[in-house]
């Protein structure tokens, strides 16, 4: 079974998701995980589907890109193997005056501590820059990671908080 990673990016308009989903459905592709949002007004969608060959999906999505407003990419990916043991889930929030390199420095500090970013969003509004990242940390490392993050944030002149993610099960 082919597993495909597809991205669709470009000028937003009503109906892009429907167009993409219909094209995939016609090919018998099973849309599994997907995410779509608007980034500063630009349409941005990433999805995984299984079924058809990459070339067939590319051809089916080609009309979407015909007017030059959207870019669609398709590539075959290897299905994930066994999932590694999860770390401890935390939420890192960073906010402060916008400047170059906030995400780079903060995520490097996380990576150096063995942390893995599992979800990330950033927003610039006025001069306020906000980063919220969900991260998995090596068990028992959160205090040390919090210290590293605080030092990096102080160098950048931004604030950071690291909190255990809410994992209530109902």
């Amino acid at each position, binding site marked *: 079974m082919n597993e495909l990673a597809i991205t669709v990016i470009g000028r937003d308009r009503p109906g892009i998701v429907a167009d993409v989903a219909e094209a995939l459905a016609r090919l018998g592709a099973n849309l599994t995980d997907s995410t779509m949002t608007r980034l500063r007004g630009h349409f941005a969608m990433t999805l995984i589907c299984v079924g058809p060959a990459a070339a067939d999906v590319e051809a089916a999505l080609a009309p979407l890109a015909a007017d030059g407003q959207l870019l669609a990419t398709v590539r075959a990916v290897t299905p994930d193997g066994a999932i590694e043991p999860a770390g401890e889930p935390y939420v890192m929030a960073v906010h402060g005056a*916008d400047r170059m390199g906030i995400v780079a420095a903060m995520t490097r500090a996380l990576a150096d501590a063995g942390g893995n970013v599992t979800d990330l969003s950033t927003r610039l*509004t006025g001069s306020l820059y906000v980063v919220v990242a969900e991260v998995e940390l090596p068990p028992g490392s959160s205090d040390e990671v919090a210290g590293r993050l605080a030092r990096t944030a102080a160098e950048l002149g931004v604030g950071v908080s690291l909190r255990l993610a809410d994992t209530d099960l109902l």
Partner: protein
Amino acid sequence: MTAEYAGLGGWVPEALALPGEVRPVVSAPDPVLSRPGPEVDPKSDEVVRLAADLVATMRVSPGCVGLAAPQVGVSAQVFAVDVTGHPKAVTVHGAFVLCNAKVVEATRWKAGREGCMSVPDLTGDVKRASRLVVEGMLPGTGAPVRLVTDGFEARALQHEIDHCAGLLFLDRVAGAHAVYQRKVYL
């Protein structure tokens, strides 16, 4: 000496005997919003004036249910709250100002969407206690207050106490996709 905590005892902002002046509200990333405020002397003239100004500024700001000293550029543990008439409020203590307030009991945590005058373009999902006990002091008399509340007033109190500690709702959002561009402005 242990203070004897009581309720608001009918306290109203008029007890400050000052009209209060509207002060400009600062926005993130102003560093004053990220600095923990010091405790204050609730009887000092400066704090009484600040309390009156917070109430006055809160009252002229549409939809504002609470305002903390750092939001008017003063790093201090003083805030005003008034959730009167808010559709989500259950228990309502009217308009009041607390100094040096601390959360002493917090239970029944619930997620809810929050905004902030100092972060005007964003909202976020934040988990807060919906049953809350707060202890603080009244400006002017310095009388100790123990407030038991719930629901939206509890959320507002936690938001303002956070401000006094140099924290924004952004520091408590539930996850990477729990921050939203504001769509409706009051």
